[in-house]
């Protein structure tokens, strides 16, 4: 009856819709796949997803510059590989006998991506730009210790420290802030803390096309001093949502998913079980630990701490919460890190033993109650966790259940990340999660956390009778140039901490990688903040 009018109305609206879509579509200055695909049909491309835009690619700053892009474009003087420091832009180096003066021989055949030469003067210029913005970088141990930077000639750079500090080279191997920008990349006033003119580095890749918040395409740096990358392009698509990343990968739009927390453990398992892709887990990169605050009277007692350590089944937690994608941890630091391979027998899950330790400590379970008491006070403890971190939440709930079986009432409190950091700094918690940094930051970053207040570790260890001795050994270990002495000192610190059960290892975190079957030559990088793109190939 009203078909014709209805049709006309519908047609009118459809036309309107189409016009609006086309008009809006035209205004997006389209640089989609179709335009750059022409003529590059045979180009080997690796496409990956990243949750955020790669940022301004400033080598000397942090957020929003992404480690991914920084590590592709810029290089360090030395790199971290399998626990050792290896030459990169510095061919070799010497350390003065007292451990304060590093003299680097700069690789002479290195050019920046604009064709200009990489020189010791530029090393100094970059280093000074970093030091000018010192306040931002004090977290990195070597920075506040730098006394002098000198370019002795074109290929010799000298770094003088105020005091000996063994991890200096490890700190120079991190992705930011000590990496090198070409002359033309500096802003007019030379102050890179406000921005860079353009991202000119010596790394294997250059940024060739960039669409903010959408995608970035990297191509090999024609002047690269090392072996050329095997693929012609790396496309980094910005996909903020984890589920979308998985769907995009399943559709075949992505070749690789790599990066911490990029997809959920469930999604990883699902992709693994599909059998159509390659899924890989790295060696342990860091440890998730529980920190028991000894400044709380209840936790000051070694027996209580040991009971808590024995009173939960790590293996079950790793299987149940981390779906087996993390590994049960026996040690505070993964033993594959430098100086971390210690000989201590790990604590075993033993509820009976845990119960008897608590009994010995005077915490008795009255009949008909679930919570132990001592002098009328219940054995109640509070565990704080970052509420946005679903793994921590599940771990907290598991611990609550496990410890209630030994008569401990664990209250779990999820807080905002910044509140979490504030409470940790102020030492306002009984129990807390603490993840180690991983390579190349550990073990020295962990040791710093044990010595220095404010990281949520040192203060919690304050009631240990041997805390002063631990601190002394760490300071000695940091300063000595004798590797053997350091191995012994750090080994002794880690052994004591392990025996004191104030830091309880739970699991080793691993990197996950999922890629399409035509991707080859994938290797996990040793440095936690690096990405495996250099050296990768495609069939």
């Amino acid at each position, binding site marked *: 009856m009203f078909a014709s009018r209805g049709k006309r*109305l519908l047609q009118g609206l459809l036309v309107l819709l189409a016009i609006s879509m086309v008009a*809006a579509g035209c205004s997006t200055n389209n640089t*989609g796949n179709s335009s750059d695909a022409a003529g590059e049909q045979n180009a080997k491309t690796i496409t990956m997803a990243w949750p955020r835009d790669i940022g301004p690619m400033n080598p000397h700053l942090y957020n929003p510059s992404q480690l991914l892009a920084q590590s592709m474009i810029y290089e360090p003087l030395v790199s971290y590989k399998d626990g050792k420091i290896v030459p990169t832009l510095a061919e070799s180096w010497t350390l003065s006998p007292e451990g304060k003066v590093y003299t680097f021989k700069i690789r002479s055949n290195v050019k920046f991506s604009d064709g200009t030469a990489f020189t010791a003067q530029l090393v100094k210029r970059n280093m000074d730009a970093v030091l000018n913005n010192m306040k931002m970088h004090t977290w990195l141990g070597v920075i506040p210790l730098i006394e002098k930077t000198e370019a002795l000639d074109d290929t010799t750079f000298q770094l003088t420290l105020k005091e000996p500090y063994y991890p200096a080279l490890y700190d120079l191997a991190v992705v930011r802030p000590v990496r090198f920008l070409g002359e033309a990349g500096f802003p007019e006033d030379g102050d890179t803390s406000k921005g860079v003119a353009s991202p000119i580095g010596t790394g294997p890749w250059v940024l060739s096309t960039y669409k903010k918040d959408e995608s970035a395409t990297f191509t090999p740096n024609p002047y690269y001093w090392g072996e050329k990358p095997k693929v012609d392009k790396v496309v980094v*698509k910005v996909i*903020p949502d984890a589920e979308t990343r998985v769907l995009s990968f399943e559709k075949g739009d992505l070749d690789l998913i790599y990066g911490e927390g990029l997809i959920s453990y469930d999604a990883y398992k699902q992709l693994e079980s599909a059998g159509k892709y390659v899924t890989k887990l790295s060696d342990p990169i860091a440890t998730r630990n529980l920190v028991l605050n000894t400044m709380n009277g209840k936790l000051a007692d070694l027996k209580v701490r040991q009971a808590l350590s024995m009173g939960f089944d790590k293996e079950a937690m790793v299987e149940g919460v981390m779906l087996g994608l993390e590994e049960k941890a026996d040690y505070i630091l993964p033993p594959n890190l430098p100086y971390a391979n210690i000989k201590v027998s790990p604590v075993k899950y033993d509820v009976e033993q845990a119960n008897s330790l608590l009994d010995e400590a005077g915490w008795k379970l009255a009949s008909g109650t679930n919570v132990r008491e001592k002098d009328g006070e219940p054995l109640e403890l509070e565990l704080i966790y970052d509420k946005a971190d679903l793994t921590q939440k599940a771990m907290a709930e598991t611990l609550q259940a496990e410890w209630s079986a030994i008569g401990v009432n664990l209250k779990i409190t999820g807080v905002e990340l*910044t509140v979490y950091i504030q409470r940790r700094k102020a030492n306002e918690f009984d129990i807390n999660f603490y993840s180690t940094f991983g390579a190349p930051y550990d073990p020295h970053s962990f040791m710093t956390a044990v010595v220095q207040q404010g990281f949520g570790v040192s203060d919690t260890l304050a009631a240990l009778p041997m805390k002063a001795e631990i601190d002394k050994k760490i300071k000695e270990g940091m300063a000595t140039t004798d590797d053997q002495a350091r191995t012994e000192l750090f080994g002794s610190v880690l052994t004591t901490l392990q025996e004191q059960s104030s830091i309880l290892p739970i699991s080793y975190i691993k990197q996950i990688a999922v890629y399409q079957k035509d991707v080859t030559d994938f290797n996990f990088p040793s440095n936690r903040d690096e990405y495996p793109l250099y050296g990768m190939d495609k069939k």
Partner: protein
Amino acid sequence: MGVYIGKRVLSIIPIILFSSFLMFVMIRVGPVDPAEAYLAAAHIHPDDEVLAAKRHEFGLDQPLLAQYVQSVTRLLRLDFGNSYISNMPVWEEVAQKLPATIQLASASILLALVVSIPLGVLSAIYKNRLVDHVIRGFAYIGACVPVFWIGYLLMFFISVKLEWLPVEGRGSLQHLILPSITLALWLIAIYTRLLRTTVLEELKEAYVRYARARGIKERVILYKYVLRIAIAPLITGLGMNLGKLLTGAIIVEQVFSWPGFGRYFIEAIVNRDIPVIQCYVMLSVCVIVTSNLAADLLQLFLDPRIARKGRAS
């Protein structure tokens, strides 16, 4: 009528001022220190000296009142400050991202109208028949299923399984289809039900009976009289829903990697990027207030009795 319009337009000012105050207070009383959040996002250990320097840089060491006065005076100049994260002027960044959001929102509104008008009318005409049940079922589902979930379903079936459309991104018309369907679904659900109700009510009115008695064709009654009146609440609905559309766009943009304003806002929340959050909230308030006003005024032209009622009260 002029007085009524004047009053309505002026009433916007206190609403916007009050919103700005409320927003300021809510952000400041929150437990999160933006300087600390910034450092956490950058993986920098927040030692006291660094924190103090950042707080000073962000102006957070000023007294609260000074901060508020400063933010209002800047607001009046459309100066939302620089983003804590990118260090770029917020307004510039927003201006870059707005076209994508406007494109998505307008495509969704058009799609919603195109689909819901015929559905609503059909549902009313075939009241309690199979067509009506199907349409109402569809509207019911559309209204209660979460937006992001619909987004994933569409992606999974249309993009991954059938490979008809891209999963995410922006750039071509194809990219626009799934996000705008996702964003339009709940609007379709609301409008369809709204239109069904109003059409049914109008059909009971006396003028319809007279028109029928005069032998005017059913089709003419429906399109010439009923629909014209029944569409009016839809316009109000649209005005009221524009704000909700913006919040819906946040989720859709996130799910479909649509580089718009909503996604920018999500990142700002994660990073506690206060200038961006302020800009977003103020813009949303302005959009909601002005779209409500526009809808009211439009109604006024469709039905001038409103102004008389407004003046009488």
